[in-house]
């Protein structure tokens, strides 16, 4: 059992150290932006009185899905308030939203590139696999050395962890556009860009939205872990509840995560998939009212 010790860890650590020193300005720059975004958003979300916010979110649920969903959301949010986790939930929400935003900004162009070129796809795939199988905890370490503790390293690791489905589903969505539809574009002499923006992207929207939905879910799960490096919000509550074995607090923060997750999941699900929209969604009702002419017969 005297296999040579391969100090991969040291190599990586050295590399990260080098980066920390030499790309300091870059990390500072990123850090400033991310902090600005998250804190800006969370300030706004917390500044809004919770009854207003709860009603707005429930109303959004009604617009996109159904009365039932709006009612359930309302109950969920009131429970969050009742468990005294509203502010934490808003902190987590802002972190998740900003993480999603930044992840999507990176993921969509990458996904498009991967869809257009098999070699990009082949190169990107193992990296994405790696990003998702590497335990999220491990990201926290370089994140902390780059960005110190607080919300920024949490955001950074969240983005890395949540990125892959965004890329994958964008690629899948574009590649999944019916061959014939793309060929229709080609057959009429459309340029690649015309096909991309006029056909592929619009038709990939549901899949891309499903990807964004996954990004959000992963970001939320990572937001919990981000509590370890000091990002405020539900995650920190959960983490500190385990380290103090405070089950009551853990359950309340955990349940708040669940409610938030279910809301975000169903909500973003409805954004991409029109079928998920119930008949009682306001959008569906409005559309119905608009096209009052009979369409059935053919």
């Amino acid at each position, binding site marked *: 059992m005297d296999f040579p010790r391969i100090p991969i860890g040291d190599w990586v650590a050295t590399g990260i150290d080098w980066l920390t020193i030499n790309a300091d300005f870059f990390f500072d720059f990123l850090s400033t932006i991310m902090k600005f975004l998250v804190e800006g958003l969370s300030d706004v979300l917390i500044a809004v009185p919770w009854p207003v916010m709860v009603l707005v979110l429930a109303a959004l649920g009604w617009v996109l899905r159904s009365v039932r969903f709006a009612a359930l959301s309302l109950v969920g949010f009131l429970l969050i308030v009742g468990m005294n986790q509203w502010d934490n939930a808003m902190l987590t929400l802002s972190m998740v939203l900003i993480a999603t935003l930044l992840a999507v900004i990176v993921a969509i162009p990458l996904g498009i590139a991967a869809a257009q070129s098999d070699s990009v796809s082949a190169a990107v795939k193992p990296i994405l696999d790696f990003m998702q199988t590497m335990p999220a905890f491990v990201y926290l370490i370089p994140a*902390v*050395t780059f960005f*110190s*503790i*607080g919300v920024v390293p949490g955001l950074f690791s969240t983005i890395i962890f949540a990125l892959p489905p965004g890329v994958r589903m964008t690629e899948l969505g574009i590649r999944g556009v019916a061959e014939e539809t793309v060929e229709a574009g080609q057959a009429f002499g459309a340029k690649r860009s015309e096909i991309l923006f006029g056909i592929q992207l619009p038709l990939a929207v549901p899949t891309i939205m499903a990807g964004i939905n996954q990004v959000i879910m992963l970001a939320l799960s990572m937001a919990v872990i981000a509590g*370890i*490096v*000091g990002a*405020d919000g539900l995650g*920190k509550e959960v*983490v*500190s509840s*385990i*380290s*103090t*074995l405070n089950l009551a607090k853990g359950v309340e923060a955990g349940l708040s995560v669940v409610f938030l997750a279910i809301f975000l999941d169903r909500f973003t699900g409805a954004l991409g998939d029109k079928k998920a929209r119930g008949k009682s969604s306001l959008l569906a009702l409005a559309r119905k009212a608009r096209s009052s002419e009979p369409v059935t017969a053919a």
Partner: protein
Amino acid sequence: ACGTDDPTTGNTGDTGAKDMGTITLGFVPSWTDGLSTAYLLDNQLTEMGYTVKMETISEAALIYQAVTTGDVDMYPSAWPEVTHASYMEKYGEKIDDLGTYYDNAKLTWAVPEYMDINSIEELKGMGDTFDGKIIGIEPSAGLTEASQDRVLPQYELGDEFEVVTSSTTAMLAELKKATSTEAPIVVTLWRPFWANAEFPVKDLEDPKGALGEAEGLHFLGTKGFADEFPEAAEWIGQLKLDDDQYGSLEDMVVNEYGDGKEKEAVSAWIEKNPDVLPALTS
């Protein structure tokens, strides 16, 4: 005590006289007082014929929990008097205090020496300087609880500051970074802790005593520890270290030898300090 052979630590008792049972020590690896003491005990108890198993756990609460159930036999270097008072309240009944080996332990808030404030009181109104952050350690630490629940309210700093929790090492990383660029920082610290010597820091005065008085570092055992391991309990009860002795032990383990060479460090320290330890009873 449990049976998995932790491959990285432990000692299968190759001194081999007699099998006196297995003692599991639980500690938080980044709290170097516990780390150093655990390896000191490992060295000596093994000598006495015990099998020693190290259980590294990153949260203090879990160690208390584990001591009550007997999954961990002993928490060396607990702070039960002040810092872990709330844990003792919850778990104390099922825990035997096996003795105190050091009695000048103290929680502190510290700033770099280049900062010209000297008291916690002076932090009021300086929230912007420090970005509103007190850099704390593990959420489960007694130090964290004291900082959040006593220092902040008593000095009315709650509106300006928050105690940012993460880990001891993260705190140290921050401290290192700040001191190297002479940036402003407040950290939560304690003594004895090697970082006090390693970094140019000074303790802030605590006129209100919010962080509590000096306290003792205890060996906490699971209920009935002394009955199960009488020799060990007796020896442990006799162990006392003063500031110098403890300081050199920690320095040796943490700084001179470092991660992975704790056993060698302890051996070396025993060689240099032959008279400090009580005689082995076996």
